[in-house]
């Protein structure tokens, strides 16, 4: 445990399986929690939104990054936000948006929410530290 716990928000930019950022951010977030710190929000932006598709099927001998984030999120009640503008144009969509855009399916994985950049601005103002994991 660190002497004085602080709050973090984590910004993630890189696509899972193309960039290391989603897995480095995962390790950092988990370690920060284990050291007694608080995670205000994890915000997935740009190509990192691909973490939120429940249609992803990872080979058995490879790391399932989405599952790891879901398990961490569930265990510690993390606010894991996926940028809605970045997500919709990459085919990551929840049922409300699917209805609005008249799509025949939705695919947002459990544990993640779609929301706007305002959530990122809020994160920068409400957290003691912001750590960005670039693509």
């Amino acid at each position, binding site marked *: 445990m*660190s002497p*004085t716990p*602080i709050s*973090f928000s984590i910004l993630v*930019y890189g696509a899972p399986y193309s960039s*290391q*950022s989603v897995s*480095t951010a995962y*390790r*950092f977030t988990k*370690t*920060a929690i284990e*050291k007694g*710190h608080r995670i205000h929000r994890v915000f997935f932006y740009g190509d990192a939104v691909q973490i939120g598709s429940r249609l992803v099927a990872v080979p058995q001998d490879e790391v399932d990054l989405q599952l790891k984030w879901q398990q961490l999120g569930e265990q510690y009640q993390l606010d894991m936000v996926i940028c809605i503008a970045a997500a919709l144009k990459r085919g990551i969509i929840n049922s409300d948006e699917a209805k609005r855009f008249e799509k025949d399916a939705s695919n947002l994985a459990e544990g993640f929410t779609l929301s706007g950049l305002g959530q990122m601005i809020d994160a920068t103002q409400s957290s003691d*530290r*912001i*750590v*960005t*994991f*670039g*693509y």
Partner: protein
Amino acid sequence: MILHTVNKSPLTSSCLNNCLRAIGDNDGLLLIEDGVYGADKHQGLKLKPLPSGITVYALKADVEARGLMGRLSEDVRVIDDQEFVDLVVSHNASQSWY
């Protein structure tokens, strides 16, 4: 005091150089992911001249994954994930270069 993180190799990206141009006295520099190649003493890409008081760190998991343990410049401190968190806490802010 800012903690700068660099995640790209200096062989493929200018972000380490850009960071070194912007880094201030007593800031910290942490090399992560492919950024750890910047600390390889055999590449001739020495992290010098650095402003005074800069400490250079490299993330252990990334150094090991690239077989660079034992090939780093002597003035680079290898740290684990826990020390990464501690560094972010002990600096006023963190700035990522990618």
